[in-house]
């Protein structure tokens, strides 16, 4: 991913949070029409629907408010999916509140694309024992798997593997490194 795409994703993530305000939770995003909009766009394989290029084809005057909202949401949804790593607290497999909207977006995407598979790689930080951490990494991957399934993905699309503490994302023996290493990574084929 390029820096600009990441920046865009972050900006959109913020805007979604502000825009959706208190009404936007994981549950409300399961709304049927919303889901189908996402599906339609993703089936086109489009990733630049709301790319920010000011090309002549789309002008604000021809866009209805509903269309504008839908496009914005679709773009936001895609931007959410740029996030593929999810973090955990020490010795827990609890999915954090801030990860939920993103995981819902991934689940919706998987639901809309039955041919798409994903591998969930669970990791732990270096503290504690290797074998327990192997089981902990699996528990984290399983927690994400359950969340994706509850939100529309099917079991057959998801494979899990735990690496325990063996593949840290960053080296270092401090809380900041550990926090980045306690994670589940979504790897799409």
């Amino acid at each position: 991913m390029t820096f600009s795409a990441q920046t865009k994703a972050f900006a959109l993530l913020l805007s979604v949070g502000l825009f959706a305000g208190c009404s936007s939770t994981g549950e409300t995003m399961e709304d049927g029409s919303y889901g189908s909009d996402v599906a339609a766009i993703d089936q086109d394989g489009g990733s630049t629907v709301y790319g920010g290029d000011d090309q002549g084809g789309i002008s604000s005057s021809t866009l209805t408010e509903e269309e504008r909202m839908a496009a914005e949401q679709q773009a936001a949804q895609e931007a959410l999916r740029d996030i593929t790593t999810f973090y955990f607290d020490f010795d827990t497999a609890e999915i954090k509140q801030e990860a939920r909207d993103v995981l819902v977006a991934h689940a919706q995407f998987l639901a809309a694309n039955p041919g798409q598979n994903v591998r969930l790689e669970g990791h732990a930080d270096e503290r504690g024992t290797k074998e327990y951490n192997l089981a902990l990494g699996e528990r984290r991957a399983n927690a994400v798997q359950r969340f994706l399934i509850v939100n529309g993905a099917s079991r057959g699309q998801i494979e899990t593997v735990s690496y325990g503490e063996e593949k840290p994302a960053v080296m270092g023996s401090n809380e900041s490194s550990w926090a980045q290493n306690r994670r589940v990574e979504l790897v799409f084929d």
Partner: protein
Amino acid sequence: MRQRIHTTWSIRILSSITLLLIISANANAELLIRITEGADSALPIAVVPFAENGQIPPGDKLSNVVQSDLTMSGEFRALPPSKMLSLPSKREEVFFRDWRMLGQRYVLVGELTRSADKINARYELFDVNREERILGERAAASVNNLRSLAHHISDKVYEAITGVPGAFSTKLAYVTLDSFNGKPRYRLQVSDVDGKRSRIRLESEEPILSPAWSPDGKRLAYVSFETGKPVIFVHELSSGNRTKVADFPGLNSAPAWSDDGRSLLMTLSKDGNAEIYRMDLQSRQLTKLTNHWAIDTEPSWDHNGRGVFFTSDRSGGPQIYHMEKPGAEPRRITFGSRYNARPRPDSEGKYVYYVHQREGSFHIARTNLKTGEETILTRTQSDESPSVSPNGRMLIYATKQGTDSVLTVISADGGAAYSLPASEGDVREPAWGPLIR
């Protein structure tokens, strides 16, 4: 005559003693030895350089190896040869008064004789105060096996003085990690307990974990990620033949041998959650020993081979549990802190050793199984993977020195003895091999 020495260890850091005993120039990621701490109560012993008849191969002197073995145990303090007043090689040449004056309790003398492709050793151990011979033996080894002969003599000397068989002839298995062509390189290696004579048994770009010795010392079980996920292999050391014994969906991990070498305890999550199973290696039949929503892992047979120690977080965090027999209701063993894991019992049923978290640091601790008393044995942090020597006197574990992982050996009651850093990269996952008679 045999006497049992009850050593009381005072854990005082002799910071001035930081001997770099053996420096390996070998680039083959060999282990080094650093004796970092000794015990005040170490017994003074003089290992006199052996007399040599005929062509003895150059390289490490046998007496140097014996001396470093005994020193590494933390229970002995060896007199440097430069301080010896004479270099006797048989009883008639030993003047006990001299050795008493030098403060020595024991004197080991001997000689090596070459015959064809063999080295024959004759050696005698004396108690200086009693002016008595307490050990005398002849032993032989092939010319290129002088180190084995030395470790054998160390074992005999150790046993004659302490009453406990020495474990200097046993092997270590461990995993080193370095980088090669920009990729991680994991190597499963087997060496002598002093880190020498290491041999690479498996090399992989993917992690290798949890090596476990079969009771006869001929096979290793371990977890390898070489297929992209954790899979248990059994590896016959003489032939190098490997068998994939557990490759189920999910975790295949934490192998532990039964006393008869016919079955493995292991952790599988094929039914969705980490549970402990016993696999008969002949039939590959599985018996499920735990059934709980929590993580159950790191199994190990207890000293009599009937019950099983394991780690479970059924109480909310990892703790040590014991099942009297497979399938019995587990009893919780550890209560001292919120994180206790990877139990390794001794061979007598007195103690169980494990990783213990206290105030953010991970140490090795042990619990007395009779009294429930818990003792923290290490002052290092980030300690992992304790493995008890087969004579129950020593413990090896992995820890960090700076950013490197190293192995450290301590006496089983906490007196520190030596560390085994790799010449480059990390070394971890030590497993102390069995005594082979």
